[in-house]
């Protein structure tokens, strides 16, 4: 068994020269942080995770520690070796922290019993230091080496606050009391002036190192804080927390004696939960954070100040004096556009001013028209054109030169419209662009003008009959088709080649509000795919076959992907150059840009919210956000990040509960796979089968409760289930190589409106059509249901229902044996129970085949029959099963793993004489693991069994002849090991994905 790749918690990160070193599982990794390239990965410990490390001041040596392991290594060897495990040493107690002495010839190790072991670089113990009667267990601590003989220990205790003691005098300097609960981190400023600590109370306290006085308390984090660091010459503090954020705090001196910790910035850096590691590169002012989700994230601490021009603010007063124009007292900013020369701003009295980005000055634009009644409808950057409209059906087009001077103005009026309430602009090509105009009168046409750019003449005028209940909001042009996003999650399709053709409207694409953007993405077999965003936070990818488009049938389009952003409103989306989906919108007053593919925030700006005027424009390679508050206008430049945004992408913030590989089809030198997590999300990703590299595609948020299972049931469908009776049938589209798409096609009906049952497991058996299937679902209240899924009608129909007893059912399997359809369950009582449901379903078992036949029998609801056989196998819950049907001897072999550490082989047969189902345990290994067995997987033509268990040992058993012979065992760093899936490659080797808190990819 060989590890190809691992994604999981990273506990410590540090900058050193142009590198970031990261403790990643049992490894130390070296990254070039300017390129995000992983330069080396060196195995440090056999089993333990590296919890922390320190690099000596001369950069020669590293002390790595984790749990009771410790290793002192040269940095050079870490940069160049693949494994240094033979250097691992064991300490008697858990090591909280380790540091080099000032001269770098000794190390200090603080253990969880508040003792410091001093040893040389070969780990020979020189001395042990402690303070009398203070051996209470520590959760945190730091050693501050001020000089060769001045060393202080900050010990973070469970109930006694922080004990600060002098290492060599072995005497207590301060006992810092002020926190509630366990101290989770404590650190000193390197000038010896301050101590900062955090605890279970979610506050940060700044202490005076000299006097032990409590200087200030910082509140802000909404969950536990795990790490702190002073930076920028000890004038700032940075913190990371269980609330997924990284926050910066200024140490502000108000008066000479009053010092305040003031929260300055918040960065959302990790998913769902804990952030453990933290460091700052002072020279570059960037931070690095490491989290439970396996992500290593870089944070630009000068994100809004690095270049000095990120934020510009002008009041109307500023503009008035710069442009030498008069504004009235109640004058407001009404609209704005951004061009290469700068901004165009339109005010409530109809004045127009331009901003020159080079000279930082404003100029008035003299106008022949009174523009008071107009508003800006939009602009075209490449054409330096702004379009204005008013409700009297007038349109004004204005062109500026590259200096921002007005060079052309044209006006058109569409008298046949009652009134124009909505105007939108879209660029077509070098010579033309288009304007759409909409009147609130339903009888008025929806108008599209094609404008000749050089003359501003109307080249063509298209009048379409306006669809009912249609209020336009966003625009895309695809060939001769105009795609108009509208309210109520609608999309209108207008054929510019045929004005008389009735526009087609796709309605209710997602449950929601206005369609805020439509964007062409790619073509699949000549059928275009569009990305559509909805203000409510949904986004969809929809394929539209324009050749068969009609209002009468819905087959011309297909929603191939659907998802919802974590929170907030969605205003638009695009793919970046790394093929990552970037979305933007608002979370109350905050504007955000978010990397949806890998789920992290790229930038944010408090700006008042979406109801204000705002505009996100391209500014060269960067973006610029224009917004106003009252009579002020703000320009916020959002630069391409100074460094890579991440050094490594993670997967899930919490435990992975199930993994399913789409085994039927290889995809780009590997396979697509899904992970279902306790964090309520499902991820669709890809792994490369040579090196195990993982590429994320989507993080699906349709489930609202922690996942139980996910499984690809064939090459195009997947099923997931969770609490709250959620079971979704997903359709996979893997026709494109840029990414796969996945969308919920149907959900299983629930038993009540407010369901609180957990669906623990499911299984399916296909009908001959290979599209229809029966599905059985088992529930936490002992209920068993069987459903028929009809592909054509896309519906689940209940076929059978019943209850086992009252205990929770963990697993279910449908098997065909001897022309009988068996439903096998394993509940928490440790039994295997088999029902013969052949005669309870309206489908026929076809002799010799593994599918059912639809003889068009009437579908009636039947009751779960009495079980045919029931027998005890495990003492308590059977956590996991896998099955194998042997047609040669007409048997089903069931492999079961239990909470009782046991592993069993169970055989089910049909007795020839009586035609009865009989079952028995043919092999039972009582101590197959030291803890709960959570996954059993057959491979190698059903001759080998892989087991995963909570003791973090993966075992391979030979199962030939119904015996269990353990052949191999290997420790996995993935804690709470709960699941595995295996795929056989064409070359005959097997790849296993092992999940828990993280994911490991192994070659078996």
């Amino acid at each position: 068994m060989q590890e190809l790749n691992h994604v999981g918690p990273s506990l410590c990160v540090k900058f050193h020269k142009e590198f970031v070193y990261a403790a990643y599982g049992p490894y130390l990794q070296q990254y070039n942080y300017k390129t995000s390239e992983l330069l080396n990965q060196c195995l440090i410990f056999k089993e333990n995770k590296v919890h922390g490390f320190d690099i000596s001041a001369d950069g020669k040596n590293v002390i790595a520690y984790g749990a009771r392991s410790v290793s002192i290594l040269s940095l050079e060897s870490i940069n160049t070796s693949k494994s240094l495990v033979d250097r691992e040493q064991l300490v008697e107690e858990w090591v909280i922290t380790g540091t080099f002495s000032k001269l770098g010839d000794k190390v200090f190790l603080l253990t969880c019993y508040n003792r410091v072991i001093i040893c040389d670089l070969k780990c020979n113990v020189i001395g042990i230091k402690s303070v009398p009667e203070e051996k209470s267990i520590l959760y945190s601590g730091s050693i501050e080496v001020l000089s060769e003989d001045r060393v202080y220990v900050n010990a973070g205790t469970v109930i006694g606050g922080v004990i600060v003691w002098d290492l060599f005098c072995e005497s207590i300097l301060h006992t810092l009391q002020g926190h509630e609960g366990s101290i989770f981190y404590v650190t000193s400023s390197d000038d010896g002036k301050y101590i900062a600590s955090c605890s279970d109370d979610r506050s940060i306290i700044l202490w005076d190192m000299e006097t032990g006085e409590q200087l200030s308390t910082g509140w802000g984090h909404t969950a536990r804080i795990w790490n702190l660091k002073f930076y920028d010459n000890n004038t700032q503090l940075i913190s990371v927390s269980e609330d997924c954020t990284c926050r910066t705090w200024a140490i502000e001196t108000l008066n000479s004696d009053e010092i305040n910790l003031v929260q300055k910035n918040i960065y959302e850096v990790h998913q769902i939960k804990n952030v453990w590691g933290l460091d700052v590169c002072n020279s570059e002012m960037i931070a690095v954070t490491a989290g439970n989700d396996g992500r290593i994230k870089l944070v630009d601490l000068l994100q809004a100040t690095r270049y000095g021009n990120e934020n510009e603010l002008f009041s109307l007063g500023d503009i008035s004096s710069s442009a030498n124009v008069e504004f009235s007292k109640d004058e407001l900013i009404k609209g704005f556009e951004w061009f290469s020369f700068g901004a165009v701003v339109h005010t409530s009295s109809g004045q127009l001013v331009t901003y020159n980005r080079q000279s930082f000055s404003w100029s008035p634009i003299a106008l022949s028209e009174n523009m008071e009644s107009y508003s800006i409808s939009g602009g075209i950057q490449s054409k330096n054109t702004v379009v204005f409209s008013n409700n009297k059906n007038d349109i004004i087009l204005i062109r500026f030169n590259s200096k921002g001077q007005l060079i052309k103005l044209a006006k058109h009026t569409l008298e046949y419209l009652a009134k124009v309430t909505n105007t939108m602009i879209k660029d077509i090509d070098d010579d033309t662009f288009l304007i759409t105009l909409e009147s609130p009168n339903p009888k008025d046409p929806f108008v599209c003008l094609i404008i000749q750019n050089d003359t501003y003449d109307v080249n063509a005028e298209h009048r379409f009959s306006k669809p009912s209940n249609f209020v336009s909001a966003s625009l895309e042009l695809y060939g001769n088709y105009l795609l108009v996003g509208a309210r109520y999650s609608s999309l209108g399709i207008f054929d510019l080649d045929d004005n008389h053709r009735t526009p087609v409207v796709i309605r209710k694409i997602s449950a929601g509000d206005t369609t805020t953007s439509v964007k062409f993405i790619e073509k699949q077999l000549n059928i275009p795919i569009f990305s559509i965003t909805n203000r409510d936070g949904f986004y969809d990818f929809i394929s539209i076959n324009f050749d068969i488009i009609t209002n009468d049938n819905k087959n011309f389009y297909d929603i191939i992907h659907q998802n919802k952003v974590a929170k907030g409103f969605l205003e638009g989306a695009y793919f970046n150059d790394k093929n990552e989906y970037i979305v933007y919108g608002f979370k109350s007053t905050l504007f955000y840009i978010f990397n949806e593919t890998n789920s992290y925030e790229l930038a944010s700006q408090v700006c008042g919210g979406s109801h204000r005027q705002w505009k996100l424009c391209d500014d060269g390679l960067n973006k610029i956000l224009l917004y106003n508050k009252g009579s002020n206008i703000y320009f916020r430049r959002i630069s391409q990040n100074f460094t890579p945004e991440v050094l490594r992408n993670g997967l899930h913030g919490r435990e992975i509960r199930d993994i399913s590989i789409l085994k039927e089809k290889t995809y780009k030198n590997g396979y697509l796979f899904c992970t279902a997590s306790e964090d309520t999300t499902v991820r669709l990703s890809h792994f490369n089968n040579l090196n195990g590299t993982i590429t994320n595609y989507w993080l699906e948020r349709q489930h609202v409760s922690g996942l139980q299972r996910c499984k690809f049931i064939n090459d195009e469908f997947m099923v997931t289930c969770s609490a709250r009776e959620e079971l979704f049938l997903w359709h996979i589209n893997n026709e494109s190589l840029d990414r796969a798409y996945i969308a919920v096609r149907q959900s299983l009906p629930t038993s009540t409106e407010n369901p609180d049952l957990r669906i623990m497991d499911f299984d399916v058996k296909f009908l001959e059509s290979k599209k229809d299937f029966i599905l059985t679902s088992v529930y936490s209240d002992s209920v068993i249901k069987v459903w028929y899924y009809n592909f054509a009608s896309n519906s689940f129909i209940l076929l059978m229902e019943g209850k086992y007893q009252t205990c929770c059912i963990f697993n279910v399997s449908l098997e065909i044996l001897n022309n009988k359809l068996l439903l096998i369950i394993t509940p928490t009582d440790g039994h295997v129970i088999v029902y013969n449901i052949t005669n309870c379903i309206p489908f026929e078992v076809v002799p010799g085949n593994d599918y059912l036949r639809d003889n068009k029998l009437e579908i009636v609801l039947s009751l779960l029959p009495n079980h045919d056989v029931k027998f005890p196998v495990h003492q308590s819950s059977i956590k996991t099963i896998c099955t194998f049907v042997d047609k040669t001897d007409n048997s089903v072999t069931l492999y079961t793993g239990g909470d009782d550490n046991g592993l069993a082989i169970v055989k089910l047969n049909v007795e020839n004489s009586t035609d009865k189902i009989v079952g028995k345990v043919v092999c039972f290994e009582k101590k197959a693991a030291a803890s709960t067995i959570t996954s059993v997987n057959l491979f190698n033509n059903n001759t080998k069994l892989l087991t995963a268990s909570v003791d973090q040992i993966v075992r391979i058993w030979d199962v030939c002849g119904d015996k269990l012979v353990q052949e191999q065992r290997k420790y996995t760093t993935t804690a709470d090991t709960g699941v595995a899936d295996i795929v056989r490659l064409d070359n005959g080797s097997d790849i296993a994905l092992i999940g828990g808190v993280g994911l490991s990819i192994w070659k078996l």
Partner: protein
Amino acid sequence: MGKRSKDKRDLYYRKAKEQGYRARSAFKLLQLNEQYHFLDDPNLKRVVDLCAAPGSWSQVLSRKLFVDNKSEDDSGKKIIAVDLQPMSPIDNVTCLQADITHPKTFNKILELFGNEKAQFVCSDGAPDVTGLHDLDEYVQQQLIMSALQLTTCILEKGGVFIAKIFRGRDIDLLYSQLGFLFKKIICAKPRSSRGTSLEAFIVCLDYCPPKDWVPKLDLNKSVTEFFEGCNIKEIHNNSIITKWYEEDRDIVDFMTCGSLDAYDSDATYHIDVKDELSNDLLNVSLNPVQMPTNPPYKRALELKRKGKLTRSI
């Protein structure tokens, strides 16, 4: 959401409320006793409950010793409950607010027992869980080792020790260590403990310390130093740091406690389920699961409620 959906299935929580127990964990001790009957011995007189707060195990001990096993003369019976946190009083239980690692605590217990040793020691204590599985399991094992240190000083030969464990990656290490002090070690899982949780209980029967070993609590001694001479830990070396070696691990027998017809803590029960004890229909209304009364983050919660922690930058 996940949390919310757990409440309703918690029949043990409901039963605990009905039967006057402070926490559902009372049923874990009751079910352990169903299997091993250590509390049914009429001669059981001196018991200690470590990490006792909020006190549901002490309640069980009190009912067992003074109600179920009531005899003519209960004067020799004594239950001592120790915790760092204050506990509200329980009938026939002497509450001791003390640190189990401190020698004074051990003296106080012996004093209360009139210099006789305890026959039964239990601990349902668990530390703050950080989410770092290896650390959480280690701290839990240290808590057990602390409890065990005290136990070795106060438990009579042949006595019983039970403690909560998490069955993680190093559990076999603990099994191996405890095997040096007790004749029989079992990992027991009561049905009232969720199958989806790593929690289980280590049942150590027949205390049998090495003959020439005298346990002595000393605040300045490490765990290893304490157990020196009883072959329990790091027998391979004398140094505080040593080259990595394979530690002794041992898998012990697993036993499920509580009968099969006991409630399943993983199941969802419908509100029309009848309670087999009272034969009453279980009440629909169920108070939300009790929140910690005085959590360390109380102030943070108050600030959050007042909207002081919302993101404004």
